[in-house]
């Protein structure tokens, strides 16, 4: 009788690579790389037709019009996208408390104490013929202005960049002090589809 070997026979693992390849190709085919990023906005709730829009003082409104040729009209003057951020920033912060820029309302905010919150509203109006790309560029510039202001306030009060804030109570305080006040008017059909 032949002696049996003591060692257990090794399992053949050569097909393991094939199995792994199969799984790999499955994932390559069914998945996509792109992570979803974008600009977040909150739409206003549907309007009650009987309710009249609130009266807003002229100094508290910053109007931006975009026409069908993607040209900008900023506060009644033809403007360029490059100057939009600085103008929006100045409008929202009103650092020198000028009489032609928006009023401020003292408001108690936890962690910040009494903070003068701007009453300014940016009114964005676009034509039906405006390109989506231009609209996003304008939204992006406005978001940049708000982000810069928040960052400055965060640096001044907490000494940390706004993007690096981790505690939600701090983030909420800053967001309350500098709200995203962009109002979008009902579109007008001037330039056609």
């Amino acid at each position, binding site marked *: 009788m032949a002696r049996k070997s003591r060692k257990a026979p090794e399992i053949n693992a050569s097909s393991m690579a094939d199995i792994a390849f199969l799984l790999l190709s499955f994932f390559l085919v069914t998945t996509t790389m792109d992570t979803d990023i974008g600009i977040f906005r909150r739409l206003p709730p549907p309007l009650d037709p009987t309710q009249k829009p609130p009266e807003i003082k002229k100094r508290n409104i910053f109007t931006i019009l975009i026409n069908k040729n993607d040209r900008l009209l900023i506060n009644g003057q033809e403007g360029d996208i490059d100057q939009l951020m600085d103008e929006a920033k100045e409008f929202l912060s009103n650092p020198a408390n000028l009489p032609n820029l928006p009023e401020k309302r003292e408001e108690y905010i936890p962690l910040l104490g009494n903070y003068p919150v701007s009453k300014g509203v940016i009114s964005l109006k*676009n034509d039906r013929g405006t390109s989506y790309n231009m609209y996003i560029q304008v939204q992006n510039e406005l978001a940049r202005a708000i982000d810069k202001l928040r960052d400055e306030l965060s640096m001044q009060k907490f000494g940390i960049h706004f993007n690096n804030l981790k505690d939600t109570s701090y983030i909420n305080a800053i967001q309350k002090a500098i709200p995203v006040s962009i109002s979008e008017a009902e579109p007008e059909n001037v330039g056609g*589809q």
Partner: protein
Amino acid sequence: MARFKKEVSKETPKPSTASLPDIIFLLLIFFMVSTTMREVTPLVKIRKPYATEVQKLEKKSLVSYIYIGQPLNAKLGTESRIQLNDRFATVGDIQDFVIAERERRTEADRPLLTTSLKVDKFTKMGIVTDVKQELRKANALKINYSTLKKTNPRQM
């Protein structure tokens, strides 16, 4: 002393493939972590605009997508169309779509539902505005304009 000379095989030894599965598994795990499952097959051409101030969409399960762009099939013309789930739709279908998306989520998740607008950058705003008005009527107020990230704001 020829007795002690080992016999050398004439053939070249085969390279060991024992670590091949490990390498492939590593690749596999990399792809599993870095990619996401494809949502729908696109029927419209989406060239996303660039933006700098972007935020990441946090929870994929709480996002519903609306695609707007030119149809990929040239026979359908160049007019921008709306795509919901795997088919073309009209502006009137959006409210039903939002309600159906809401039904799919649990009660607790419904207020957190975000609508991601994936819109081609050469689309005119008219159709986008119509979609936004419908979303307002359906009370789906949290929206996200899907963009690509550009680090330098001066080249757009």
